[in-house]
């Protein structure tokens, strides 16, 4: 029992210690990332404001992440509905192929997409990253949405239909509000995955790098390393904030509808 506790603590340290080091060095005045720490500074954060290339990369990443998240979630809704509401020949096989990118090495997706795009005579750019990210985000969205749809009693939809609604208004008035927590979860997870995805973005980003690709290129300049730490700190804080807010809304929704659907926390 005691050794299990020690193991759990060690495991948590292994997981989170590197993340705790980020803010430590982000506020350290030395340009060298090493102990002992020198003195407290916010210089690296102000330096971030001057890096216009980084701003472009951030904007790029946000655009790509939002678009991919919306696309993946929309596709996910259709797929999850199809699986939970209907049964059709080849259902299992089709779902297997849709979920495959979950375990497919990203490098394979990236390289094959790159070859296809170039061979077809197109240029890479934000759109090709969006395509790649939608591909890898969709299975996650489906996994979350499927549990949301599965928790939805099909007679709720029948009841709305029986009470005079059309299939479309039934979806709008009953289905959508009840799976909304799942949809928000799917959007956020897809957004987060796209935001920090590196391999596909590295291969397909073209002339406009995403934030992870830009960060990687910055590592060649030791002078900029503390600024990278500062940026990392901001991203960690924002991620925690975002997930907390999402979970808050999800739990409130779950409490209201009386059943807990989807969600990672």
């Amino acid at each position, binding site marked *: 029992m005691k050794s299990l506790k020690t193991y759990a603590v060690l495991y948590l340290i292994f997981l989170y210690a590197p993340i705790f080091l980020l803010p430590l060095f982000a506020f350290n005045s030395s340009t060298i990332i090493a102990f002992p720490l020198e003195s407290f500074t916010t210089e690296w954060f102000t330096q971030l404001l001057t890096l216009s290339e980084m701003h472009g990369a951030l904007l790029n990443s946000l655009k790509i992440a939002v678009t991919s998240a919306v696309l993946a979630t929309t596709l996910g809704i259709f797929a999850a509905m199809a699986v939970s509401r209907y049964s059709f020949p080849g259902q299992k096989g089709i779902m297997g192929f849709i979920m495959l990118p979950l375990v497919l090495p990203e490098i394979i997706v990236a390289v094959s997409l790159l070859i296809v795009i170039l061979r077809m005579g197109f240029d890479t750019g934000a759109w090709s990253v969006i395509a790649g990210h939608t591909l890898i985000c969709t299975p996650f969205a489906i996994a979350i949405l499927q549990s949301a749809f599965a928790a939805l*009693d099909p007679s709720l939809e*029948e009841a709305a239909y*029986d009470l*005079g*609604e059309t299939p479309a208004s039934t979806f709008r008035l009953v289905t959508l509000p009840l799976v909304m927590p799942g949809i928000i979860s799917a959007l956020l997870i897809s957004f987060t995955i796209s935001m920090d995805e590196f391999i596909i973005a590295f291969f397909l980003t073209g002339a406009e790098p995403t934030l992870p690709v830009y960060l990687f290129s910055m590592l060649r300049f030791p002078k900029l390393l503390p600024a990278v730490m500062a940026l990392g700190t901001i991203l960690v804080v924002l991620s925690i904030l975002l997930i907390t807010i999402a979970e808050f809304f999800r739990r409130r929704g779950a409490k209201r*509808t009386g059943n807990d659907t989807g969600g990672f926390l």
Partner: protein
Amino acid sequence: MTADKPLISLQNVNKHYGDYHALRSINLDIKQGEFFSLLGPSGCGKTTLLRTIAGFEDYDTGAVMISDRDMRGVPANKRPTNMVFQSYAIFPHLSVIENVAFGLRKSKMSKTDKMLAAEAALEMVGLKGYGHRAAHALSGGQRQRVALARALVLKPKVLLLDEPLSALDRKMREQMQVELIKLQREVGITFILVTHDQEEALVMSDRIAVMFEGEIAQCDDPEILYRKPNSKRVADFIGVMNFLPATVRKEGETYLATIAGLGETEITEAQCPGGVPLQNDNGGEATVGFRPETLTLLYEGQTATHREAPAVVDEVVYYGDMTYYDVRFEGVEKPVRISMRNIFGRDVLGVGTQVRVSWSPGALVVFDQSA
């Protein structure tokens, strides 16, 4: 609507799920204002039939007529029927009043009138003042009432109820049975209830259709169904029925049955729902059925009004107000159940007691052995 014309008429309705014949030539007329039940074991097609009337299921051949209108191609949202689902299907994201008023969304009533109608429906089901509550915070019985109010506020011609009481505990269920009967009388709407609970069907219905394997085995009012089941199967499904083997023969114009353990008695054609089971001129094999309450244990000094037979008590089941005795007649291996009302001052008999059992030939139902 004239009195003799049925509100709902099912004409030779057939339905297949792949190779499975789910509904077999269903013919059924249901009158305006009737409390009608579809009763049968699970998988007998009763819910499929209900959903066919509601418009949720298609059928292969035949016709579903409501108020003389053929319902083929009319979707559920355009039919004059409303349904109370087994799970109640209360919208959890809406308040009670929003649930009840849901079906009025498309009506041309003013907003105030809609709210008034919803309030009135809530009051009718005994939930006055619950309108603002969140639907998910209600108890099972309250959800049931909201589902009823939500369906009745639209004033449908037919209310369809799919096992509405099966999720409630026994006390609540019995209370709701009485309330449903009262409610149905009050609103005068035709109710069609699906249930697997024969007691529930007997208590609530004007008429009951008993279904087995996609077929209607018998459709009658509760008393006839109980007293004159047309087959062994129906007899066995409705209440408790004792069966004993017998032989039947004809002597002149009278029919005589020799029943194992009970002896010979005269029977009439009216007691044989499938016709007198005479396989040939000399006689035939039969099964006689009789309800536990048609038999009486005779205490000392009592005499039988009709006939009596000796037996031994095999098992005693004490229910407080009633005692069920399983007794064995002489020469019969199979025990026969007798129900006795417990009367103050009369002892419950023990296992192994020698008893005399009074029985009435008129209470017997005679079935073809194979039926």
